[in-house]
């Protein structure tokens, strides 16, 4: 039956008026035509006015804003001894974290005077961390912890590895102390939530790189700055997820509790927190991963740890060394992710919750996704009764004895205190990697160069020419109108504000170059994400095969992606783009896959029943119905990509990112670096708002 054949049925009486749903007729928006129109105006304008009013500024040239910031920095440094705020508040916070980091370092990683070695030697540290892993997550994960920490030593990066852990742990603990109460408070008071949520929005939209300069301005550089930076960056996810967890406790349960006369504090302690516990642990997991990522990047403000090694090696184009340090960061990421995840699952098991239908689903997925062999009998999935908790405590107590012996021994013998240098294979590994990379790059050179040229000449150069060589007012107009066409008046306002800020920083031209790279990378991300995501959404096997990789990739701090990209493509813009694509693909792919999977199975079945082909199914049913997820994936892809594109300044990515990097290495460029940070934030907010408002308009099909 086709639409043409169907005459309106005369027999059907119109339903009573009040029952008719109100039909909102929407004018067709002709978005495509409008965008095409804008493009025509743009290209014509560009071809006529190319190269005029581009607002390009030479690298070393400072404008008044930059010098003002430089002055501000000098003032703050001068005021650090006198001003009550910088001396009394900031100074004390700074001193406290410096003191704390040093204390812990002396305990485990640097000589603690008068001893020539730390209070606890490497053997003790390994044993202690293994024990913590055992207590939190179980035997398998304890082994992973021990292997990871030992690798620090074998790679000759013992102190840096431990320092990275120290910064991360201090930040996470502080976040838990601050973030969970704030999240709880937000879940209970609407006004508080309304006040804080927009702040969290902005904080999460800001690329990690943009945090660096303002923090350095206030806290200076060093360990305390790194800690504060890490705390600020990793706090939002925990607050958010805590609030969400408490809010999503079912209203029926809250009501039932209310009918039994619970006080507010009983409600929190006995109902909401226990029921939200799992979600909160997920929040801690997210917080930890964010913290690690930032702890690595904090190398730019002279934060101690593995980030330093990666950064220096990248700057010296020493891929081997960067790969060793980067590999360790990946190991730490996997270790932290797996232990915190296992901790949340374990809690559940100890309570003996088994196999409801959904629980079964989660469990199956977990079983399939486990990437490490399951050794321990201790971990056998389901232990129903509470006594197992008691058993666990006893076994932890028993294991604690050899741990303490290790700690004692590590205080007595120098070889057990200081990781033996003869075990340091870091240099060898780095050389081997360098050799391999050279060989490999030679083998695939034709391919990589071809690909690089294709994207560079086919997409990147023309677009950059168009965006950066257009007069600034033409470009500003183009962005405004695209924003308006896609996202309506609110997007227009957002774009206008962000453009004004970018103009104010005096970095218009650099911002346009960065924007070009971001857009190109996002296009690549979305192509890959669509292909992988559709495959995963439609095919269980593809999903089960690909998802673990995505999960792992997602835990890797953005910084590390630069290493393989540099190895393959050498110094340049393109390397930054490749790293950004690699970083953006996992999240975008997952969102696309979930969207495709989320298409109602009834609709899919009905479409299949009408004899649709696979391609028709994808193009006419699944992708249109998953539109909301696609828009969300693009939004997230943009933000992820932007955050790496700017870090790419380190490997020749140029423009804003490079300015940020230079701001830390060259004293007189500090102001310009901070201005670049502001421009990055403005770009991020602009992209986010346009994507978000267009999602609001087009997302609902």
């Amino acid at each position, binding site marked *: 039956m086709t639409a043409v054949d169907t005459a309106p049925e005369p027999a059907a009486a119109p339903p009573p008026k*009040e029952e008719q749903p109100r039909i909102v007729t929407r004018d067709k928006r002709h978005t495509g035509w409008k965008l095409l129109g804008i493009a025509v105006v743009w290209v014509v304008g560009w071809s006529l006015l190319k190269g005029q009013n581009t607002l390009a500024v030479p690298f070393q040239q400072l404008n008044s804003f930059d010098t003002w910031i430089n002055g501000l920095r000098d003032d703050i440094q001068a005021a650090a001894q006198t001003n009550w705020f910088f001396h009394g508040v900031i100074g004390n916070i700074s001193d406290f974290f410096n003191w704390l980091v040093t204390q812990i370092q002396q305990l485990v990683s640097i000589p603690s005077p008068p001893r020539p070695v730390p209070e606890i030697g490497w053997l003790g540290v390994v044993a202690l961390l293994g024990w913590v892993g055992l207590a939190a997550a179980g035997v398998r994960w304890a082994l992973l912890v021990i292997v990871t920490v030992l690798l620090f030593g074998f790679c000759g990066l013992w102190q840096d590895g431990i320092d990275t852990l120290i910064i991360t742990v201090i930040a996470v603990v502080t976040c838990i102390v601050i973030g969970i109460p704030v999240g709880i408070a937000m879940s209970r008071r609407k006004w508080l939530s309304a006040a804080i949520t927009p702040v969290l929005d902005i904080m999460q939209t800001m690329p990690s790189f943009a945090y660096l300069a303002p923090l350095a301005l206030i806290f200076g550089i060093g360990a305390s700055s790194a800690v504060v930076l890490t705390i600020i960056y990793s706090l939002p996810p925990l607050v958010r997820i805590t609030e969400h967890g408490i809010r999503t406790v*079912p209203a*029926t*349960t809250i*009501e*039932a*509790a*209310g*009918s*039994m*006369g*619970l*006080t507010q504090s*009983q409600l929190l302690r*006995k*109902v909401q927190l*226990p*029921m939200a*516990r799992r979600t909160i642990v997920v929040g801690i997991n997210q917080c930890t991963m964010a913290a690690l990522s930032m702890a690595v990047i904090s190398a730019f403000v002279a934060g101690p740890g593995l980030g330093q090694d990666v950064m220096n090696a990248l700057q010296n184009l020493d891929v081997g060394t960067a790969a060793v340090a980067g590999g360790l960061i990946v190991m730490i990421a996997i270790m932290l992710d797996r232990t915190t995840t296992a901790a949340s699952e374990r809690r559940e098991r100890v*309570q*003996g*919750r*088994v*196999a*409801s239908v959904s*629980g079964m689903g989660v469990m199956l997925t977990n079983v399939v996704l486990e990437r490490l062999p399951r050794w321990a009998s201790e971990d056998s999935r389901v232990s*129903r*009764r509470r006594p197992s908790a008691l058993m666990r405590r006893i076994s932890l107590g028993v294991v604690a004895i050899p741990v303490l012996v290790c700690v004692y021994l590590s205080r007595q013998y120098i070889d057990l205190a200081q990781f033996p240098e003869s075990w340091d294979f870091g240099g060898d590994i780095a050389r081997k990697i360098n050799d391999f990379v050279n060989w490999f790059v030679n083998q695939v050179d034709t391919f990589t160069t071809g690909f690089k040229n294709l994207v560079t000449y086919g997409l990147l150069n023309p677009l950059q020419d168009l965006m950066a060589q257009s007069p600034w007012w033409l470009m500003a107009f183009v962005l405004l109108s695209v924003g308006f066409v896609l996202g309506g008046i609110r997007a227009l306002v957002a774009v206008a504000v962000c453009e004004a800020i970018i103009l104010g920083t005096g970095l218009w031209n650099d911002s346009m170059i960065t924007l070009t790279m971001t857009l190109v990378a996002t296009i690549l991300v979305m192509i890959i994400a669509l292909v992988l995501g559709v495959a995963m959404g439609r095919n269980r096997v593809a999903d089960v095969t690909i998802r673990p990789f995505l999960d792992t990739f997602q835990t890797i701090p953005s910084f590390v992606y630069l290493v393989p990209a540099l190895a393959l493509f050498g110094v340049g813009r393109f390397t930054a783009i490749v790293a950004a694509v690699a970083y953006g693909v996992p999240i975008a792919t997952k969102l696309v896959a979930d969207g495709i999977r989320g298409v109602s199975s009834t609709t899919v079945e009905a479409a299949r029943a009408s004899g649709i082909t696979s391609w028709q199914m994808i193009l006419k049913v699944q992708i249109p119905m998953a539109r909301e997820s696609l828009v969300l994936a693009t939004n997230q892809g943009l933000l992820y990509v932007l955050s790496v594109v700017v870090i790419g300044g380190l490997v020749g990515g140029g423009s804003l990112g490079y300015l940020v990097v230079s701001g830390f290495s060259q004293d007189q460029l500090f102001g310009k670096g901070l201005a670049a940070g502001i421009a990055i934030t403005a770009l991020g907010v602009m992209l986010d708002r346009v994507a978000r408002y267009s999602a609001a308009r087009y997302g609902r099909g």
Partner: protein
Amino acid sequence: MTAPTMEPEHRQATAGSTGDAALTVDGLWKIFGARADKIIGTPDADLSRKDLQEKTGCVMAVKDVSFEVAPGEVFVVMGLSGSGKSTLVRMLTRLIEPTAGSVHLGGEEITSCDEKALRELRRKRVGMVFQHFGLLPHRQVIDNVGFGLEVRGDDRGDRRGRAQEMVDLVGLSGYERSYPDQLSGGMQQRVGLARALAADPDVLLFDEPFSALDPLIRRDMQNEVIRLHHEVGKTMVFITHDLAEALKLGDRILIMRDGAVVQVGRPDEVVGAPADDYVKDFVSDVPKSHVLTLRWVMRDAKPGEADSGTSLPAETVVREAARAVLAAEGPVRVVDGDRVVGVVDDEDILRVVVAEEHAS
């Protein structure tokens, strides 16, 4: 706002006076929206729901509802979704604050008591069972049942003992250590029931407790409630949208529509003398012979008919009386106590039974 068809004698028989009622609801209103309290007493209050919403933006949920529940009575509030019945039951313990009106439990006014007294009352005097159970997934059955006792501060030994009793009472012995998601829906609701009973409350409130269950399990649970009512004799207020359930469980039924009371009465009154077309339509599918008593089908005796022969009490349900009446030679006398109030013959019985056959 009482039902127009209520006969005075029935009213006397079923509803106690204010003094000894277990629960008294007087002129209870709930209007959702800004400045809702200003509406009551104005002509706006008489507008239909739709008109009121268009005019003021407020939603009339419950409109001037009054009733009394006698101690030990099972009082059913019945209505379709959106009729305001769930709002009504929540106002009884102020889970939703009433806009106007009063609720008395025993002699105590719930609507005016402070936060602390209200909490005490919820802890000790009223138990509630919810449609979606509202169990705590992180606690075992026994701890869910004892939860109310725990929050009011009973010591561990006492509450374990009491909770165990309740678990046994609702037939869940052996499942004390299970977690809610290991149980079927019916069993979960038994936990909900046990939890409500554990505090030994004066009044039990049921908010559509069985609507989420399969029909067979629902029937089991209804019988369970009847059994528990016999054993513990609690006053119960039972919300449902299922007429059969209302007729089966209720000593009296209150029918709501658009927030207002349409009729209050015993099951046979609701079926035999529907207050308006709405109720009539509602009860049209009910097998009348299962609900109506002889009082509803008898006629006045002609001279001589009431002198001798078989007699049956007026409260006998038609279905149960049918065989005796059909077997009798002549008309059967209907008695209320010792007094003959009328007679029924084959014709009267068949009229009810055959009408049903016809309808179905």
